[in-house]
């Protein structure tokens, strides 16, 4: 269409309506900045929570007299279980070595004896199912009954209290950050579109005059939308620049010291910048177009 005309008109109205334009630009800037900081934080937190949940294990202790054949059999049965992700075998000797490294004094007292059983460390597919898995594998039930578990299994443990605590805590963290992120996004959209609406509203008389002179809706709309796009792009550019400064000045030097900052699941900076930029532009353009619609019905 008349692209040149649209661009000239958009630039003119940016220049002549400096204050409302600046307000819209500032709101885009601030919300994108907050989102840009918050999104990685949410992701790092969820990532950390998932990490912790991944560490929930079930220890399957075998009978003291378990033969290597028993070990292989039990192991095969565990691997075949649909709820099990992986199984790691820790032999008596390996267990003793690890424990005595952690607690050398206590194990010195034991002399040469090894009280530790062969152990199979089971990582469940879904940490929420840990307790069910424990019940299934344990040879004796709480009510004294016997399950069909392998006779070579002496007992099954998962530190029940800890597991439950970890599961609840991580769930709370995940839901809270998710909710906060949602609220923040909704608030950002409302703030930006509201500011854009205000600046359009301030010019409703102008729109009315344009209609009287015989301008078609498109003729009035496209410069406005383009103006929204320009504002969004400028605000987003500033926000991205500031985020870049924050990243280079603050985050990068600290990454090696804090695991949370280096969490692998967080969004890449390039990706983050792209998403923010697009969101800023789309929201302000849509805001302009939608708020203009009311005044076009003259």
């Amino acid at each position, binding site marked *: 269409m*008349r692209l040149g*005309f649209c661009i000239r008109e958009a630039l003119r109205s940016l220049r002549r*309506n400096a204050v409302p334009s600046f307000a819209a630009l500032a709101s885009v800037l601030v919300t994108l900045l907050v989102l840009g900081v918050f999104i990685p934080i949410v992701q790092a937190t969820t990532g950390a929570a998932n990490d912790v949940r991944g560490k929930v294990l079930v220890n399957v202790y075998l009978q003291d007299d378990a033969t290597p054949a028993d070990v292989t059999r039990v192991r095969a049965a565990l691997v075949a279980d649909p709820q099990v992700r992986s199984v790691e075998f820790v032999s008596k000797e390996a267990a003793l070595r690890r424990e005595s490294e952690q607690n050398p004094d206590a194990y010195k007292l034991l002399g040469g004896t090894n009280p530790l059983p062969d152990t199979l460390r089971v990582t469940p597919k879904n940490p929420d199912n840990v307790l069910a898995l424990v019940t299934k594998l344990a040879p004796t039930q709480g009510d004294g009954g016997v399950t069909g578990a392998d006779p070579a299994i002496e007992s099954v443990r998962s530190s029940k209290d800890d597991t439950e605590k970890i599961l609840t805590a991580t769930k709370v963290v995940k839901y809270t950050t998710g909710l906060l992120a949602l609220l923040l996004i909704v608030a950002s959209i409302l703030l930006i579109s509201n500011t854009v609406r205000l600046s359009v509203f301030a010019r409703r008389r102008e729109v009315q*005059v344009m*209609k009287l002179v015989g301008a*078609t809706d498109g*003729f009035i709309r496209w410069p406005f939308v383009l103006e929204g796009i320009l504002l969004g792009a400028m605000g987003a550019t500033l926000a991205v620049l500031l985020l870049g400064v924050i990243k280079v000045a603050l985050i990068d030097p600290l990454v090696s010291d804090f695991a949370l900052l280096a969490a692998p699941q967080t969004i890449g900076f390039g990706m983050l910048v792209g998403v923010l930029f697009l969101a800023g532009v789309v929201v302000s353009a849509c805001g302009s177009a939608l708020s203009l619609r009311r005044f076009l019905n*003259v």
Partner: protein
Amino acid sequence: MAATEHELRLRDTRSAQPQLDPRMLAVRPGDPANAIELRNVSRTYDTSKAGLNEASFAVRRGEFVFLVGQTGSGKSTLMRLLIKELEPDSGSILVAGRDIGELRRKQIPFYRRNLGVVFQDFKLLPNRTVHDNVAYALQVTGMGRREIRSKVPDILRLTGLATKLHHYPDQLSGGEQQRVAIARAFVNHPPLLLADEPTGNLDPETSIGIMQLLYRINRTGTTVLVATHDADMVDRMRRRVIELERGRIIRDELAGRYAPSDVSTAEFGALLSEPAPAPQRAPDPADDFDQAFVD
């Protein structure tokens, strides 16, 4: 442009044609010789404030008509109906023989390009210069930049604003702003010009200048409908007067006065002999309206 002056003079002599009584021509299907025709048009507002009540009249092409009446008598309603800002509750409005009720929403902008509109509050775009305000009316029609650049200074010179090209509306006096509005209304050479209280905000001296301008536009063949309170002006000009009262037409006189009992004080003609800028018209003024109905 030299030829246009000559043409103008020719037109001026031709416009002295005898005027027909419009009421005798009113009830025929879409007479294109009628610039405006209202047939039993009614429009009421929710708030019981008077709108229009069964108004019927016709205005021939090239006429200059005053619409008079007290506040709330329906003058502005009539204007808003004609620019299709409002829809009538009943009855039909014909412009150049076509029922404007048949215009679809998408066609309205094209219809409005054939109208010049002038308002009491000027309705200029505040963040554009005089030049750009007038140019906007051409830009909406998709006219090229070069053509606009040549046309706008011309029309502004004719309305006496050649030196104010790059002023913003708030840097101008009321009379000057109204001249800009008239320049904008006339720059497309519309066949019909509507003015709603064009002198309502102006002092009597300035008003005369504005009326002169409208009259000269009329003499180029444009039909002009002026709603006004200005009794002095109406009495001086002695054109056709349609009086409204509470939405009804109570008087329709050729060469009428503002009020039936008023005595004319002076002839307006003397004022018209003063050198006033002459607006121009396109060579063939007729029937740009039909384009508005093209799909």
